[in-house]
């Protein structure tokens, strides 16, 4: 299955967009006697010993076209690491990951990423400039670019702010710019790393509805990292619950509720509680 030519032909409608096969990811770090991870770099005078930090292990997951997958787990369990592997910024230590049947090696415009940091939105560019960055880098003509940008701005409801600079926008608007910038090229796969982690509850709920709307209007696959249980159940149709580090799959919970979802319905609360229990299992003390 690792052969490229073979898997290419197998890819067609209905088959997996992403295949993650038994991957493990370790980082090489330096630890002191108490086994605490100190730093990636070793100073020449330090007595710390090199050690291995396993972020993810024996992780297998298939994602189909049009799925909305939420990666849910405690802090430090390797969610971002997995997303970065899918984006092509990290390579797994063992196992393999394919996208549309091809091994992932390096970033690709077909796999867009919404970063958590608000610094990912360039302060020196306007809203328009930020959203137009992807099309520009892909050599899209000025006119086509303008059209694509205008369309996306409408979709994320930022009309009237085309010429505004990021520092004049609210946190919620900034995240909408980040989302717009990622979807403007219509990527096959949208990777989102806790995009609304830093926002207040109300703004966050509003943006969640946005994401659902975007997901429904553009046919695309989304992998969404969060540690907010309700957010995962509200958005996804597949919630992948991680164990604590090293991150393994604890359970994949299917959410077969139609959108828009009612947070107060019995089924919703039932699924939410189920996920809560799954996460709490690993931390009996918390």
């Amino acid at each position, binding site marked *: 299955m690792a052969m490229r030519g073979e898997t290419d032909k197998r890819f067609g409608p209905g088959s997996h967009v992403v295949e993650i096969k038994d991957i493990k990811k370790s980082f090489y770090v330096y630890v002191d006697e108490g086994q605490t991870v100190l730093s990636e770099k070793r100073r020449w005078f330090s007595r710390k010993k090199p050690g291995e930090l396993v972020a993810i292990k024996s992780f297998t997951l298939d994602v189909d076209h049009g799925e909305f997958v939420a990666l849910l787990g405690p802090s430090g369990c390797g969610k971002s690491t997995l997303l970065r592997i899918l*984006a092509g*910024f990290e390579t797994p230590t063992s196992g393999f990951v394919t996208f549309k049947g091809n091994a992932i090696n*390096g*970033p*690709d*415009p077909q*796999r*867009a*990423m919404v*970063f958590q*940091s608000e*610094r*990912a939105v*360039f*302060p*020196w*560019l306007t809203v328009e400039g930020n959203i137009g*960055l*992807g099309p520009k*880098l*892909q050599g899209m003509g000025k006119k086509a670019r303008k059209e694509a940008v205008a369309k996306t701005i409408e979709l994320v409801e930022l009309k009237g702010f085309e010429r505004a*600079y*990021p*520092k004049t926008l609210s946190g919620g608007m900034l995240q909408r710019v980040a989302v717009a*910038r990622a979807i403007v*090229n219509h990527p096959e796969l949208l990777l989102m790393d806790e995009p609304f982690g830093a926002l207040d509850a109300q703004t966050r709920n509003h943006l969640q509805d946005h994401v659902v709307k975007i997901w429904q209007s553009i046919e695309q696959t989304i992998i969404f990292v969060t540690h907010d249980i309700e957010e995962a159940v509200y958005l996804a149709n597949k919630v992948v619950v991680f164990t604590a580090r090293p991150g393994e799959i604890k359970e994949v919970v299917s959410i077969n509720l139609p959108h828009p979802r009612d947070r107060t319905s019995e089924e919703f609360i039932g699924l939410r509680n189920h996920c809560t229990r799954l996460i709490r299992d690993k931390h009996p003390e918390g």
Partner: protein
Amino acid sequence: MHGTVFPPLEIGEVLSTVHFLEILSAIFLILTVLNRLLPHIVSASLMKGLAVLGGIIVSWELISFYEIINPVLLPPPSRVVSLMAHLWSIGFLQTQIYSTVYKITYAFTLALVSGVTIGIMISYFSNTFSFLESFLNAIRVVPAPAWLALAILWFGIGHASAIFIIWLGIFFPILLSAVAGVAKVEQVQVETVLTFGGDKYDVLLEVVLPVIYHHVLTGARIGIGIGWITVVTAELVSVSANSGLGWMINDSRILLDITTVMVGMFLIGFLGIVSDAIINRFEGLVPGWD
């Protein structure tokens, strides 16, 4: 101005102290009226600053007038102003200003291009060029005037040597600011460009240059300041070219012509402020987070 006897021995008409103070008072009166009429242009704080300056000039004039300090060593402002007007009227000052501005602009442009290029090379493309860093650090601590002898040997006496020395003074602040700027580039910003299919050079254009912009501007402001400081030293080696404010100051100093020295000092100070204001104008061009 080749062949001119320098310094020009006759000074033109000299303003009398009374006359000078009258003119000063008139200027102050006009400014007071302007302050009332156009308070947003001639602001109160500007008036306060000008009042202090006026006070200093008047005291200085009186000190010379009553010969509290020997006016040969401290010529009165009325004399400095008169000489400046005279040197301007015969076209002598313009030549010196042009020559100095030419050299400093030349050196500044060279320093900006070389400083940013080398700064990016040793920090952004660091694995290849980082060996340059310690080498450059060693050069940096040697003050630009110390290069005088080498400059003369390498470039001869003339403009090129002067430009070299001024360049040395401006280059390092710009280089260091570019290096500091590159360190401020964030990984997410680089990765953003990479996810859109950009390469290392797209990252350079779309991220590195905008990020280092403000840092380089700060470096440029410090650099141009050092540039003006270096001008007087640098123009020591312009002797055969016989031009520039620094040369004018040097030559008059030797002849104990303090008035001309002061004209030169005043002009360098004035041009320094102007150049700083010009660089400052570029600040708002690329917005940042603040």
